[in-house]
Structure formats: C-alpha cells, structure tokens
C-alpha cells in the first residue's frame, strides 16, 4: 500500500522498478503541495502529458489548499484526461506507468491517480499480409490493442458488443481483450475462454500463438482456434456467436470455436455473386484434396496399381521414370522435403535474397534436376501442383504439408490401402475434435441441413439475411430437435 509521505512512495516505486532507467519522476509543487508525476519513457506522448497533465496542474489555483482538497480536485473536478483510475499500491503504479499512464502522487495522501497519456509508437493500419481480398476493407489489425479494439467497435456500433480487458503473462503483463456479442454468444463459452485465460501459466506472452494452445483441446493435427488479421472477418465471427480474443502486440486476433469448413471460406465469397462463390469454393475443396493427396496417390498408383492409370499415360510415365535412378517413393520424398526447405527459406530470408532462392529453386530444381535425369518430370509436376494448391487454403498450410508427407509415405509403402488407412486416421482425428461443444467437422458430420446454405454453396443474401447465423446450430442435435 502507498504511504502518505511522498518521498517514501517514490523510493518504493524506484525500488520496485529496480532503478530502471526508463522510469521518469517529475517533482513539482501545486498550490504549495508537493506532487510527483511518474511515467515510463517511451510509453507516453510528451504533448499529451504537457497539455493534459502538466498545464492544468500548473494553472491550478486553490485557496487554503490541503492534500485532500488537491486530490479531490484532480480525481473529481479537474477534467484532464478521459482515461483515469486511482492506484493504491506501488505495483499498480508500476503497471500503469508501463502501460502508458502517468501517475500523479500527492504528498499527504495515500492514493495516486493514473491518467492515460499513451503515446508509444505503433504501426499504422495497413492491408493484411496474409488475408487479402478483392473487395472489402483494406484494414488489418495492427499490434496496438486499443487500435484493434477501435477497428472492431467501428464495425459494430451496438452496446451488444462487449469487451472484457484482462492481463496475462506474469512477466510480460500483456493486455488482452475478450470480445463477444452479449445477446448471441453463449455465456458459458465466454466464461470458459476467460477461465482458461485467467489460469494461463505463461510468464511471457508475446503473440497470439502463445495463448492459442491454451484455448485448444489438444488435438494433435487440427486447431480449433481461428486466427484472423481482418477486423471485418473477426466481427462476422462474433456475430455468429463466437468469442474473440485480441492480444496486445499481435496483429492476429483469435476466435473460438472454429470449424474445419471455415478454412474454405473467405470474405470475397460474400461480396461476389453466389454462383461464383459456389464455384470458387468447390475449387478450394478440390485444391485441398489435390494438395494432400496428389503426390501420395501418384506414388501409390505408380508403385502398386499401374492398371488404374490410362494406357497412354502409363507409357509416358514409365518412360520418364525409367530414366531416373531412384524409386518413385524416394523421388517423391526428396522433392517434397526439398520444397519444404525452399518454402521455409523463402519465408525467413529478406525479400531480395528470397528472389535469389526462388530463381535457384525454379531453374536449378525445376529444370536441371529433370534434364539431368535425377527426378522424373511427372513426379515434379505432381509435387508442384500439390504445393501450389496447398496455398489456396493458407490457414491450414502447415497441416496440409504434414498430411501430404504422410500420404506420400502411406501411398508409397502400402498403395491405395495405405491411403485408405491414412485417410481414416486423419478423418477420425478431425471428427474427434470438439471445439467448445461444437463438432469441428460440422456441419458435415454431424450433418446440419440448415448450415448447408453456407458451406459448399453460399446462398444469396436474400436468404442468408433473414436468419441470424448461430454457431451452435451446428452441434449435431438439429435432427433430434425435429
């Protein structure tokens, strides 16, 4: 707790901060009473601090001023900032200062007043890097929490949208906000999310990926937590009854629950004609299956079931493979692993070096390896098509890569039978996932006819607009309600 003697309080605060260099203590006298304004270097806006705090305080003139009078004036009557809160302990003072507040301590009182003068540098709102669209807003989340909250609030000007602020990470003290539409989201869902966040055992939370595993239900392959950079997508998820989490320092907002079919939906589906949306969604599903299955299927057919390949194609494939020194499975594994290496290198390298990697990969691997007879051209084609297709469902690109590799091994070692077994295992794994009471594979399994209006097809807004979507319509009990 704070002491009534100002000097003692400032000494305690310095001690808590271990005399850190970025702690700024500004002593002054207002109406003859000593005060101290505590802030953290780099966290506050100097202009705001001068105009909202220093100037009003220096211009204050109270006859017969006492510490209590001054405190009452600052807390109750003086209009200095919209974000104010009392603080009563050195730890609260330190936490507020590091969050961009300045704390006014008055000699003779045991309560300080934190005033919001945040002014740290932030990235401006730009187009999202990973979730681009053709039509719609060009705004993406940034790292600053309050900007992200404003991006969401601007799209839902309704008191139904509720933000609940929390702090997670014992060391990092990261601020997060749990968002929900109060009348749509199940109260139990929000409570469960908050409970999990409150019991987060991490000391350091630097990105949304740190807390994501604690919102999931330990499914080894598929994540039941969605992440988006787009405020409009985030708002649409909240409108379906989900609960969102915005994390300070991360441009990715999380939401739960997430369904498997959502990986094939993008915002543009809802801005285009339903017919084109249906077409492109089918293309995405086909691309997904091509991405995970094509190399494995090719390996299985070439190794075990050549009778399934049309004769003319079989002759060409056999001619191409006859010139290579490795087995089909070895070729496929080498190419797939090499592609993953190239992808990883392309992601981490600076863009100018990345071009060089692309050239090396494209020319050296794509041309010379084939012309040197190390790898068959059909195999290269299969892996290339699968790799490109994988990016169409970018949210699960990592899972696609893993599944493709498993299918290659299964198809190469056991043929179609192996593909069947791998499919069964993946299917069971996906079907076993329950995201906060909603089956991950719904509305496919369990089947929900009502939700089919926006799964493979996208019905027109004339139909979709009449009913409020609700994620809990997909919990598989629909057919039992009839």
């Amino acid at each position: 707790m704070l002491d009534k003697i100002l000097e003692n309080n400032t000494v305690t605060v310095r001690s808590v901060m271990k005399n850190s260099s970025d702690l700024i203590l500004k002593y002054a006298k207002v109406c003859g009473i000593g005060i101290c304004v505590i802030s953290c270097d780099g966290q506050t806006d100097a202009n705001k601090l001068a105009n909202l705090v220093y100037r009003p305080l220096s211009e204050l003139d109270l006859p017969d001023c006492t510490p209590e009078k001054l405190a009452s004036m600052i807390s109750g009557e003086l209009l200095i900032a919209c974000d104010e809160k009392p603080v009563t302990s050195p730890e609260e003072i330190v936490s507020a200062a590091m969050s961009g507040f300045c704390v006014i301590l008055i000699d003779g009182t045991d309560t300080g007043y934190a005033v919001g003068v945040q002014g740290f540098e932030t990235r401006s709102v730009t187009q999202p890097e990973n979730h681009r669209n053709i039509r719609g807003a060009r705004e993406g989340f940034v790292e600053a929490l309050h900007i992200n909250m404003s991006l969401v609030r601007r799209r839902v000007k309704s008191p139904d949208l509720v933000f609940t602020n929390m702090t997670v990470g014992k060391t990092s003290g990261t601020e997060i906000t749990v968002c929900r539409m109060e009348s749509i989201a199940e109260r139990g869902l929000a409570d469960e999310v908050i409970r999990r966040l409150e019991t987060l055992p991490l000391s350091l939370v630097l990105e949304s990926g740190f807390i994501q595993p604690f919102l999931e239900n330990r499914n080894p392959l598929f994540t039941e937590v969605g992440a988006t950079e787009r405020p409009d997508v985030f708002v649409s998820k909240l409108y379906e009854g989900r609960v969102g989490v915005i994390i300070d320092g991360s441009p990715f907002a999380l939401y739960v629950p997430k369904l498997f079919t959502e990986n094939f939906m993008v915002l543009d589906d809802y801005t285009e004609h339903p017919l084109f949306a249906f077409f492109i969604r089918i293309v995405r599903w086909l691309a997904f299956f091509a991405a995970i299955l094509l190399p494995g299927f090719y390996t299985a057919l070439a190794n075990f079931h050549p009778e399934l390949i049309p004769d003319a194609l079989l002759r060409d494939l056999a001619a191409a493979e006859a010139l290579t020194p490795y087995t089909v499975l070895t070729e496929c594994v080498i190419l797939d692993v090499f592609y993953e290496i190239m992808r990883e290198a392309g992601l981490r390298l600076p863009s100018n070096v990345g071009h060089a990697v692309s050239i090396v990969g494209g020319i050296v691997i794509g041309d010379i390896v084939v012309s040197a007879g190390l790898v068959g051209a059909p195999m290269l084609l299969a892996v290339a098509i699968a790799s490109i297709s994988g990016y169409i469902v970018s949210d699960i690109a990592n899972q696609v890569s893993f599944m493709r590799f498993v299918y290659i091994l299964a198809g190469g070692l056991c043929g179609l039978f192996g593909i069947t077994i791998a499919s069964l295992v993946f299917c069971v794994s996906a079907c076993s996932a329950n995201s906060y009471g909603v089956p991950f594979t719904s509305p496919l399994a369990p089947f929900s006819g009502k939700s089919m209006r926006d799964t493979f097809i996208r019905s027109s807004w004339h139909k979709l607009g009449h009913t409020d979507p609700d994620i809990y319509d997909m919990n598989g009990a629909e057919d039992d309600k009839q």
Partner: protein
Amino acid sequence: MINNKISAGSFAAVLALSRVFTEVSSLPWEHTEYGMQRFTAVILSFLLTGAVYIPAAAAIKHCGGESPITVIAGRSKLLSGFTGVLLSVFLLTAAAETGLRSHYYASVTVLDYAPPLYFCVTAGTALLFAVHKGLEASVRTGTIAAAIFVLLLVLIICALAGEFHTERLYPAFTDRPETLWSEVIKEFSRNSEFLIFAVLCGNVSSKALRTVPLYLGGSCLTILLMTFMYNTVFGHLTSRLMFPFYTLSSISDITLLHRLNGIDVTVWIMAGILKTALFSLSFGNIVRVCFGCSKAADIASLLFGAAALALSELFTVIPALTGTAARICGSGVPLMCAALFLPAAALLCSPKSDVRTGGAGKGTAA
C-alpha cells in the same frame, strides 16, 4: 471415451453403411445370387429385421430411451453378468467376421494378397485409433464415409446410364422357391448392426427410436437399388458375383470411373474398420454397464479390437473354423437370440414406476 452423445441420424447412417459393407464384401463361401428372386429375399429379410427391431424399440420406449443393458444392469447383477457374457460372445463373433471380410476384400482388391501381418498392423492401428478417439469420432467418420458412398453410387448410376436393360426385369417373385428361405435367412443374418444398436442406443442424444426407421429404410433402399442395378446391367447371365460395386464400376464405359474403381474399395475398407471399432466400443459399454468396471472400459475396448482382428486372422488360416463360424453367423441364430432375449429381459427388469409413467427414465448407457 465412450460417454459421448451422437445424433440418431448419424447413428442410422453408420449402421446402414455397416450393413451395406456386409453386402458388398462377400466372403468366398457366400456368393451373392442376383436375380429377380433377390428382390423378394431382400424385402423379406428386412421385414424380418424390422420384426427383430420392434421388441427392442418397444423396450427402449418403455424404459425412456435407455438401452436394454442399462435397464438390466440396474436391476439384477446376475442377469446383467449373463447378458454381458452373451453379448460379448456375439459381438466378438460379429467383429471377427467383419475383420475377416475387410481383410479378404482388401486382399483381393488393393492389397494383392499381401501377408496377413501387413493388414493386421495397418488396419489394427487405424482401428485402435478410432476406438481410442471414441464413439463420436467413429460415428462422425462413418457419416463422412456414408456420404462418399452416396456420391459414389450417384457416379456409378450416371456412368452406367446407357447400360441399363430394363427388359431384364420380369414379374416373378421367386425363380427357385427352394432357395428363397435360405437366401432370406442369409440376408437377415447380415444385420449384425442390431448388436451395436442394442448396446449403444442409450448414447443417442435424444429420440433413439428414430434410428430404427432411418436405418432400416436407408439400408433396404440401398440394397434394393444395388440389386436393381445388377439385374438390369448384368441380367441373369451373371447371377453370381462377389463384389458388386467393384465390378459395376469396372464395367463402366466412362474411363474415369473405370480407372477410379479403387475408390469404392477405400470406402469399404474404412467402413469395415469403423464397424469393428463400433463393436469394440459396444464391448466397452458392456464392460462399463454390465460388469460395472468404468475404469477398465476403455482398455477393454482396445483389447477387444485387437482380439477381434487376431480372431479374424485365425479364421483366415483355419478353414474349418471359418466354415463353422460362418454357418453359425449365417444362420441368424445369434442375432435372433439377442433380439429376443434383450428386450424381454429389459421389460422384465424395468422398474414398475416406468410402466406406470410410460417410461420417464433419464439415465443413459454412459
């Protein structure tokens, strides 16, 4: 693992898929005879099956949606133990037969007579994984497999559109009356899904009885449609066939379908493994309910799955044993025993208050 809830629709879809799997994966000693008589045999067998389900449905309705084994277990430990042992034997036999069908079907299509160990390890891994993930996961996966099967069926019908010769259909209820009843009994004995229904109906979230008409209707229509396609496409010239869909897709004029004739194999192998998984989960439920060993139920399910696969492999290497088992299973006696015993015992054991209120029980098998 097992105390999850499934919907009646999903449950019916998986049971129907399991039934059709038995139909398409004929064992060497039971070639299916296609002809006009088969229509009669299918309809009669489903009437018989419907009759089997009626007592069970009545017992479930009487006991407020609880499975018969739960009612029995709540009343008499002795009867509960006897029921558990009886059902365990039937389940193990049916699961081993399913494993044998899966192995045989895979061997002569995509596995190319690979060593038994090869099938055991791979299919066993998938089976145990499905059992480990529980009832919800297995049933939902089965629903997806059923949907793929329906798509495949539509594709086959489209592909064979020009091949149908309806003049091969002629008005005759029976071609060979002396074999009609044996065909009916054989068809009837293939409905081993009744055991799964009787044990797991308490896990249906609500209105478990809706499973029955959906399952019976779906499986009867599918098998009648298959028979229709066979009669009209092949005629009576090829009346004895082993794998209906595999053959149908192979004779298609459409190259794509011809080349994709392995796809239906994948669906049926999945269906076989899932069916065995459901048998295993049913056994887990018996251990939990009838023997009161909740903690051991999950392990028991896994062990049952492994035992069923091992027994199916034993069947493959001992033809005499296989023949005996096939005769017992094909006689429909185990199915009839379970179908009569379970409802009767459940009705006898149900508390009198249930009789008065018309069944207001709230408990489930889990």
